[in-house]
């Protein structure tokens, strides 16, 4: 949402050099901490993906049920004797997969639609905006809820449900800047020179949009993680036995009084993850906004 506000003051100049943006990102404390946290979380997901977790996240050890945190089980065990630490790592991976695919899909569809609606106007604009308006008017969590109930449940359909909810945000974020870019001299010049439209879109418009879309992607990732968790909390998340952070919280809800670590571990990981994504989003926005050059 903050990006939507930033989008109103779109940088029309050429995008800042990539290396400079990186430097700026890592120089700001928010960006640095965010990047580190996200890197940590991605690394955790990586270890799970490579099978490097201390225990198999779905292997059950019925004799070691509900053990509190110890040297052997860092985050304790759940009611099946599964290692909560290993499950949290694997859960990050699954949640990340849902979030990334959801945001990628919505960014792809939303930005494409937004660019077309902004650039072509007329016949394209009408339907795109109509669909956007409808999706916006539909309460987002309820939309995700309805969609998640509709499909056969697996991580991909959850991702698609979340993606549909976020499409209109990307349409709005990208369309505004395109509208103003369309009227700038260099685009007008390009059109006069007879450069094909697709080339104008890809070579000239897209780079100018990249900053806003990247920031929006980062922030949306954090929402997607939270939405997946909220859906799981209502019992509509990723199916077992593969752990996702949300479903771990859901399963542990009733254990909160007796085996708190089952709730605390995935809960804390969600918070760290989302804090990291938000900080990174802030850092990226500052770093990619050319006007910030003079402040730094």
């Amino acid at each position, binding site marked *: 949402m903050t990006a939507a506000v930033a989008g109103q003051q779109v940088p029309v100049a050429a995008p800042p050099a990539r290396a400079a943006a990186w430097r700026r990102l890592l120089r700001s404390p928010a960006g640095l901490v965010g990047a580190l946290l996200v890197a940590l979380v991605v690394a955790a997901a990586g270890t799970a993906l490579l099978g490097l977790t201390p225990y198999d996240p779905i292997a059950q050890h*019925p004799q070691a049920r509900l053990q509190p945190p110890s040297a052997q089980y860092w985050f304790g065990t759940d009611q099946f004797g599964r290692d909560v630490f290993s499950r949290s790592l694997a859960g990050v991976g699954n949640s990340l997969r849902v979030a990334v695919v959801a945001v990628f899909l919505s960014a792809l569809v939303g930005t494409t639609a937004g660019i077309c609606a902004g650039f072509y106007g007329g016949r394209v604009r009408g339907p795109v905006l109509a669909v956007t308006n409808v999706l916006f008017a539909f309460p987002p969590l309820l939309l995700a809820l309805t969609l998640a109930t509709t499909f056969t*449940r697996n991580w991909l359909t959850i991702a698609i449900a979340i993606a549909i909810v976020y499409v209109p945000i990307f349409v709005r974020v990208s369309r505004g800047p395109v509208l103003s870019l369309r009227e700038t001299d260099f685009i007008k010049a390009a059109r006069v020179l007879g450069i094909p439209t697709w080339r104008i879109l890809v070579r000239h418009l897209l780079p100018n949009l990249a900053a806003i879309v990247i920031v929006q992607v980062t922030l949306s990732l954090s929402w997607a993680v939270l939405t997946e968790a909220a859906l799981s909390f209502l019992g*509509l998340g990723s*199916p077992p036995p593969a752990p996702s952070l949300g479903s771990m919280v859901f399963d542990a*809800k*009733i254990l909160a009084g007796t085996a708190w670590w089952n709730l605390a571990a995935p809960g804390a990981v969600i918070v760290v993850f989302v804090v990291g994504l938000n900080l990174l989003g802030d850092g990226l926005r500052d770093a990619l906004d050319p006007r910030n050059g003079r402040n730094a």
Partner: protein
Amino acid sequence: MKLPSALSAPATRCVLAVAAAALVATGCSSGTPGKEGSTGSGTLVVGYTADPNTLDPWKATQFQAVHLLEQVYGTLTELDGDLNVKPGLAEKWQYADGNKTLTLTLRQGVKFHDGKPFSSADVKSSIERIQKPETAAVAAATVKSIQSVDAPDPQTVVLHLTAPDAGLLAGFATTNLAMLSKDDTSEAIGQKPNGTGAFTFGSRTAGQSVKLTANGDYWGGKPKVGGLEFRIIPDQTSVVAALQSGNVQFATLDDPLVAKSAEGSGLKVAKTPSLSYHVLQLNARKAPLDKLDVRLAISCAIDRKQVLDTAALGAGEVTGPITSPAYKSDPNARPCPTRDVAKAKQLLAGAGLANGVTIPAIVSQGEYATSVNEAQNLQAQLKEAGITLDLQTLESGAYVDKWVAADFTAAVALNGGRPDPDGMYGRYFTSTGNLNRVAGYSSPELDKLFAEGKATTDPAKRKEIYTQVSRHLEDNAAWVWLFSSYGYTATTQGVAGFTPMANGSLQNLRETSLQ
């Protein structure tokens, strides 16, 4: 220029005042929970996780609806604490004509809540309407054996049966066969229930509560509480929170974890073994489960106790097919009394599946608390025997759709039990049973045994017959019976006199008092 109201100085003061008032109110009343002006002091508040989804007793299968309607409606027979049949609206009965005629004598002076007297005409009309397909009564199959109903005088009902039906009297004791007034329509009682039960229907507010008032004219004596309020609190953990704060005095819990947390906080928690059973249903009409060895391998590879310990934290009992106290199956009477992975592998190899086999299984999420947990443990155990349980977790609507259509190879299920074994399994495991498609298994031996069980009213003989039924089901691994969990009743300290029942019924709320 004017500031928008939310930020102008007077408005801000006002907002702060409201917030402060709320905080003060919070502080003041935190010590006096449970006070309510609108209902009488003798009202027992029952915590309840969902609205009853219908007020039609003939269509009610949801727990909440049944728990509510059994307070309002009466049945011909009732069950005692050991689930033996006892008189209800029918005071006594007599079999004749080789058990093909059943004469019921009705209780005198019973009145419906609207003041009309209850008579044999109402019984005749109720049974006949239940049998009509248009009524879509869920228990229509239970009264299938009734060919015709005579009402020679107001206190006498004569039932002519197509064949002897020893389970019929126990079958009558369900709210799904409640007696309705002959003048009431399904639409009318859907709005304003009118029964003969201990409580009359008061009012309801969707998503919040249903209120009942004690019936002074009840034939069993006026209930000890002035009324019941079923208060809807969507989440079981929140129900426990409500009990702890004293705002709710009575609740049934099915989640052992929740019950445990309630136990630890000064509430009275009683557990009752329940009739319903957790089971891995196998569809013997679908490959590879059509092979007996594959089914037996699954049965041998599962330690029931482990499923119970992990999924339900040990809160229940390992069980065989029949759960009713009088006919209980011996849980160890099966081909592998203890887990035997080697035997399972050997059986698989014998079926030509030495390299393992994959079996898809449907699991419902949200239908009951332990489903997904059971599925996960079954999956882990079967994996060690080379059997891959491919779990398909479904939202409860999708699960019910597939279950009803028998569109599954295996299903993790929690099925309701009945006091009479014929009522419990006749519909599943006889080839003409209306649930046989879902059961996925039948055999001529079973058909014969069930027919014998129906024909005799001698308890000892029947016990013998149903032990054989149970044995046959286990030997053929028709399904894999796992455990029956405890039902929990949690109350505050002041609640007394409630007797929980194995069929989960709350009929004894009429004998419960509140200090």
